[in-house]
């Protein structure tokens, strides 16, 4: 361990002597303290939080991410190019210890910077909160600067798929469909089936049953929040749609009904419901009456959520920073792994290219969903399934399988909406991002570094 710590200490020393730490710290502080001070929020608790948490944490993540990649590529590749590694590698220290020491150095440097900038964001948040109007401060205290657990309707993907296949088989009995058309037909049928579970037609009820699970045991006497969002194909003059809500145990007196609510589409709405409306099994039944002339669509993914108090904001904030830290640890491993076999500029380019791929995973997902990279042939109206599709689509699937689990953690979104980031979520992030993916990348990097001849470079100090 003494050897690994010595290498780790070296990274810190380099960061301080080259004033890298100072520069990044100043940039971070300027971004998280300076700019929010000059930006104006809309005076609401949510707008205020949007600016402070979303903006500052996004900037921290971006700045730290880029500097982590740059530093991790540089610390190893430059040691090799400038030949210092030739002296280090002739000491009784394993290549894996050198690699791990450098990773630990970068990761601990990141931890320091993250704590510094996170403390600034937290302090600024508390200070600016005192300047909001009293009513908004209450919203901030109860809805935003909290850690709320989320309960959602059960996942019905399997049911949808089953119904889709049934309908497809019936359709196939009537008409012959094959190849690309079959894929397209299945997709359309699935959307139709899915719509059945999402739509609230005019003058009809739409019902959700949400299991609060184990949380029901400590939610007695505590008001809950509903977070809803719907889409519509038509826009009326007022821009809002009216609805009535009923929450409670059906067939009993334990039911709460709302006044008519005017809600805008394509936006999240949060409102409180009284305590103890769930049944003995912890199931909360929610009904929405659509009193408009337009069908409303509540997306399965985030159309209906029940938020319940789970903990304080401070710990939630720390856990959120913890997930960002896990991302940095993975980026450090990626940078070091690429520097294990590439020169500094190429390693930096390679790592940044990987980052671009991660950010463009939406495009990849669309290609995978379409089943083609060539898109629809506008003349024939068909999708072309070429050799490129046979090669690239599985490749994209592979990339998405790696990228999605990492991207699925969204601490910034959770913090800005007051959702709880549980310890188990942080643990899962650590397990998946750091141990699984970071560990895999590290093993590849260490193996490449261990095999590399370190004296092929001529010193260029």
């Amino acid at each position, binding site marked *: 361990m003494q050897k690994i710590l010595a290498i780790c200490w070296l990274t810190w*020393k380099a960061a301080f002597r080259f004033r890298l730490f100072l520069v990044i710290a100043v940039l971070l502080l300027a971004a998280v303290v300076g700019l929010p001070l000059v930006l104006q929020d809309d005076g609401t608790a949510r707008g205020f939080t949007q600016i402070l948490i979303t903006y500052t944490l996004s900037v921290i993540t971006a700045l730290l991410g880029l500097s982590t990649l740059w530093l991790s590529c540089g610390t190893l590749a430059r040691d090799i190019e400038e030949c*210092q590694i030739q002296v280090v590698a002739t000491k*009784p220290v394993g290549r894996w210890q050198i690699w791990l020491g450098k990773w630990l150095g970068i990761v601990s440097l990141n931890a320091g910077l993250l704590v510094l900038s996170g403390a600034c964001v937290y302090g600024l948040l508390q200070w600016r909160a005192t300047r909001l109007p009293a009513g908004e401060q209450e919203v901030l205290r109860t809805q935003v600067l909290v850690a709320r657990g989320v309960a959602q309707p059960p996942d019905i993907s399997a049911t949808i798929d089953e119904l889709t296949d049934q309908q497809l088989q019936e359709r196939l009995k009537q008409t012959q469909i094959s190849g690309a058309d079959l894929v397209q037909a299945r997709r359309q049928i699935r959307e139709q089936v899915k719509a059945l579970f999402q739509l609230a037609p005019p003058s009809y009820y739409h019902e959700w049953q949400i299991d609060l699970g184990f949380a029901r045991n400590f939610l007695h006497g505590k008001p809950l929040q509903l977070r809803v969002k719907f889409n519509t194909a038509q826009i009326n003059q007022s821009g809002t749609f009216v609805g009535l809500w009923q929450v409670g145990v059906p067939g009993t007196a334990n039911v709460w009904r709302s006044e008519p609510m005017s809600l805008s589409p394509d936006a999240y709405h949060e409102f409180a419901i009284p305590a103890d409306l769930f049944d003995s099994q912890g199931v909360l039944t929610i009904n929405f009456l659509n009193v408009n002339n337009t069908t409303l669509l509540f997306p399965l993914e985030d159309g209906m959520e029940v938020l319940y108090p789970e903990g304080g904001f401070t710990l939630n904030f720390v856990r959120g920073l913890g997930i960002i830290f896990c991302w940095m640890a993975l980026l450090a491993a990626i940078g070091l792994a690429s520097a294990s076999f590439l020169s500094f500029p190429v390693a930096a380019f390679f790592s940044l290219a990987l980052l671009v791929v991660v950010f463009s995973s939406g495009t990849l997902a669309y290609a995978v969903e379409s089943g083609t990279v060539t898109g629809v042939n506008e003349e024939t109206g068909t999708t072309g399934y070429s050799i490129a599709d046979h090669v690239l689509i599985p490749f994209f699937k592979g990339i998405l399988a790696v990228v999605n689990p990492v991207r699925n953690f969204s601490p910034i979104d959770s913090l800005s909406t007051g959702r709880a980031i549980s310890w188990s979520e942080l643990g899962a992030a650590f397990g998946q991002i750091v141990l699984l993916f970071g560990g895999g990348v590290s093993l590849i990097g260490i193996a490449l570094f261990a095999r590399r*001849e370190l004296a092929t470079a001529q010193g260029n100090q």
Partner: protein
Amino acid sequence: MPVAELNRKSEIANQKSEVVVSVRGLTKVFKDFWNRPKARAVDNVDFEVRQGEVFGLLGPNGSGKSTTVKLMLGLLYPTKGHIEVFGHSPRHVPTKSRIGYLPEESYLYRYLNSRETLEFFGNLFHLPRGERDNRTEQLLEMVGLGNVQTRVVGEFSKGMQRRIGLAQALINDPDLVILDEPTSGLDPIGCREMKDLILALARRGKTVILSSHLLADVEDVCDRVVIYYGGKIQAMGALKELLARPDTLRITTPVLPRETLERVLEIIRRDAAADHVRVDNPMQNLESYFLDVVQRARQAAAETSGAISGARVAAYLRAGIQEQPPAAEKILERLALPETAPPAAPPQPVSPAASAVNEQKLETLTKAAAPAISPVKPVAAGEEPADLSKADEKLSSLLGGKE
């Protein structure tokens, strides 16, 4: 004791001692991006280095010396052949705790100061804090950087970087010291100290491998050498065997009265033709003269902002040996200790090609001599040693220094 007998004893001692480095059929071919052979840097090389030897790798630039060194250190991998260091692969990590390496350039971290540099490398050897501090202190004093230990290495002159490089190579008290161009960038004082250090290490039974293209360095300290050219070994053997001229003899005496000298020459001429007998004043070499000049300047307390002359060899490196004897004693010591590989004799005064004896010259030689070299006026205290620096530069270039 006859030289042949000494050689024989030395060989027996060598055969008994441990093989530290074994190189068999070593070939290194550098390849291009497409894996096509680009250069054959080392070509089918075989040699062994035994414990206590000072072994020289000699050859012109690009002959394969440094590549061989890097192969021995596991920094490059052989294309063909086999290397063992202390019976293990060069990539065997625990074995590296017995090796000290000084690369041909200063490959140290520019942002660390000299103390931090030594502490860092001490940590890599897992030295406990007390021992690390102790060795760091002694090494800094030894290499003459005790007064600049808080300056970062990036600000050092090349010579100072070599000195701190040497210190890091010795932090672990290594059994095998590999020095790649050890005197490169050093001033003549540093060169002398480096050579003294190598001899001191050899006296402790340490093995030293040095790679150099400076023939004087190798000649001064090495027991055995290999001479490379084009990646192949062109010659190999003990220096005294390679350089000895058994058909000639040199006698050195104090200045003799003319009559005595004539009588001696008369006797010699009975057995040797007159044109084969030479008599002249032996000259000290430039290194000795230079060191004498600097010694006088130092006694006059001239200050310098750079590295000062190193102190004694660090105590932990001297453990088990007596204080370093003067040059003449070293020769005797080595002759008397044949069971360890005997280090080469320190430089002897060089006899330039002298003219054949003639009466006129004899007259000159037999005068009770005023010294041939005029005494040097010491530099006054507090005076900036500018002239000395110029002399340093000139002499460095004369001696092949690269500063």
